[in-house]
């Protein structure tokens, strides 16, 4: 694993990155809690993806760059500007939920304010959309870069290939990400695709592809930095395959102990990216265990407050069922 200082980020930035990672974890734990006690009916979580997502998102400029995420990208959305309360309002289906105003299931992140474009549950439909957003930059001579993501299973959808093909043709300022956690629900990689890496598919559409270890913060950050800079400078799209783990079941409706062995699950826990990142932070002198404990406390308080605030927000009312079907 590369040292954190090789990232070129300063101490403050690295600690900020850690806070994002930990916030992602703690907030997701809260969402599971709310699901268990029946306050929300569903959760699908990015535990195990957080370090890679933070390193990815930090390479962009969220004030102007566009993001078309998928359902595990909560932590990346937090970096992009969404708040814990925003996320909670989504899971609790509140009227002010910026993702969908309570109309979509939990974990369908979006925010007009933060350039995070709404996505459907139908996997990978965001890929063609992202080409439109990115082509808008070329048309309007704007220098924003667009990011879109999906899982390695969903990356086999035909629309993904069509979008990558178009991005290659137009040399769009567009970064495609495949978050590869080895599973599409219960389906392992061997049943999903036969190529060595998903990254190979970039060149097949005329642009670079990179595979990075999503638990290696510095490698991930630097890889994204490079492809984002290139995209912003007119050098066209790139595909990044982010190797991550799915620490949880697929979703609240799944039980992965059925199809994953005890050993696999235990092994994965040992290699939890959060723990590895914390070890690295300590070893490389960024934070002490006590400082981490303090940050954790602070974040838990923040999330508790956000939960209270979100719960107190109004629900959508039945009479709005037909609002905004059409423009008029």
């Amino acid at each position, binding site marked *: 694993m590369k040292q954190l200082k090789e990232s070129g980020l300063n101490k403050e930035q690295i600690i900020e990155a850690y806070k994002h990672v930990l916030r992602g974890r703690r907030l997701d734990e809260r969402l599971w809690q709310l699901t268990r006690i029946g306050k929300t009916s569903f959760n699908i979580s990015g535990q195990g993806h957080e370090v890679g997502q933070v390193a990815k998102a930090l390479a962009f400029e969220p004030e102007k760059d566009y993001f078309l995420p998928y359902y595990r990208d909560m932590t990346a959305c937090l970096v992009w500007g969404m708040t814990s309360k925003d996320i909670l309002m989504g899971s609790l*289906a509140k009227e002010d939920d910026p993702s969908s105003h309570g109309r979509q299931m939990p974990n369908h992140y979006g925010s007009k304010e933060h350039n995070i474009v709404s996505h459907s549950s139908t996997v990978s439909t965001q890929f063609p959309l992202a080409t439109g957003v990115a082509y808008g930059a070329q048309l309007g001579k704007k220098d924003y870069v667009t990011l879109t993501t999906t899982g390695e299973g969903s990356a086999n959808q*035909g629309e993904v290939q069509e979008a990558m093909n178009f991005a290659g043709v137009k040399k769009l300022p567009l970064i495609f990400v495949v978050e590869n956690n080895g599973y599409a629900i*219960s389906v392992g990689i061997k049943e999903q695709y036969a190529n060595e890496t998903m990254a190979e598919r970039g060149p097949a559409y005329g642009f670079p592809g990179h595979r990075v270890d999503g638990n290696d913060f510095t490698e991930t950050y630097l890889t994204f930095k490079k492809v984002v800079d290139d995209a912003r400078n007119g050098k066209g799209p790139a595909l990044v395959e982010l190797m991550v783990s799915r620490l949880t079941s697929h979703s609240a409706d799944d039980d992965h102990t059925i199809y994953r062995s005890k050993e696999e699950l235990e092994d994965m826990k040992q290699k939890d990216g959060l723990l590895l990142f914390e070890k690295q932070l300590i070893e490389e002198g960024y934070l002490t265990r006590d400082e981490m404990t303090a940050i954790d406390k602070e974040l838990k308080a923040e999330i508790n407050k956000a939960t209270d605030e979100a719960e107190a927000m109004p629900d959508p009312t039945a009479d709005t069922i037909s609002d905004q079907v059409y423009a008029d």
Partner: protein
Amino acid sequence: MTMMTYLEAINKGIEEEMTRDEKVVIFGEDVGGVKGGVFGVTKGLAEKFGDDRCFNTPLTEGQIGGLAVGLGVVGYRAIGEFQFADYILPAVNQLISEASRMRYRTKGDWTAPIVYRTPYGGGVRGGLYHSQSTEKILFGQPGLRIVTPSSPYDAKGLIKAAIRSDDPVLFYEHKRLYRLLKADVPEEDYVVPLDKANVVRQGDDITVIGYGMVLNHALKAAEQLSKEGIEAEVVDVRSLYPLDKETLVEAAKKTGKVLLVTEDNKEGSIMSEIAAIIAEEALFYLDSPIKRLAGPDSPSMPYAISLEREFLVDEEKVLNAMRELAEF
């Protein structure tokens, strides 16, 4: 006779047919292995029939659609599962351009005996993309059949008939009925015809036509109304396409008062076709306008509980509409 849920009845029907005919194969996302489908409909089949005859596919619905057709032309009877009826959309091209036309465009030289299974319907907090009734999208494509069972008995008999049929059959399963309905189902081999509606209750006062969850609502409401002295004829459409016109028209003529119920949007639903048939073939038997009870014309089905409830056609709404019609 064994007590079985709607889900178990489908599972049993498939198992019996796979035992009976080794040309039957089944596949889809999470269909194979130990998972046996996200709802568990294909549980045990991989173990029993091997990973060649029951297998996982990559996450690609167009491919699932076309794979089934290709197997069909070389003599297999493929059962392809779409994990949710919402995710049939990426396969619409294969279903319409290929499956439904292979026979016609070769005047029978090549055929595609296929069952496409998929869970549909709302009321499960599935939001906009796990609640849809997408059968209307594929309705009216000559060459394709669409059927749906509304009881465990039909579930088993209909899936068996679908598998034996030489036509491509789209088999819709109401996901709320999976575990809600439990009834005695014969252990013997039997099939339910793919082209016949079913008069499930006799009555002289009003005729109610529906399928799926709302059909079950109508049956309960009919019992309630019976106590009030109103007798409803209740018809399960069952064969959604092509429709069993004869039975539907007869049932309309019998009482002269027709209520069509669907949980889909009002405009464009299959109930509209049934209304058109009755208005064309039984107009002078009618004593009241042909009433349609349906969801609002907004996209199916928001997640927030208040909105989901507002959208859903529940038992109370059916009861009220039936009473109102009786009083017309």
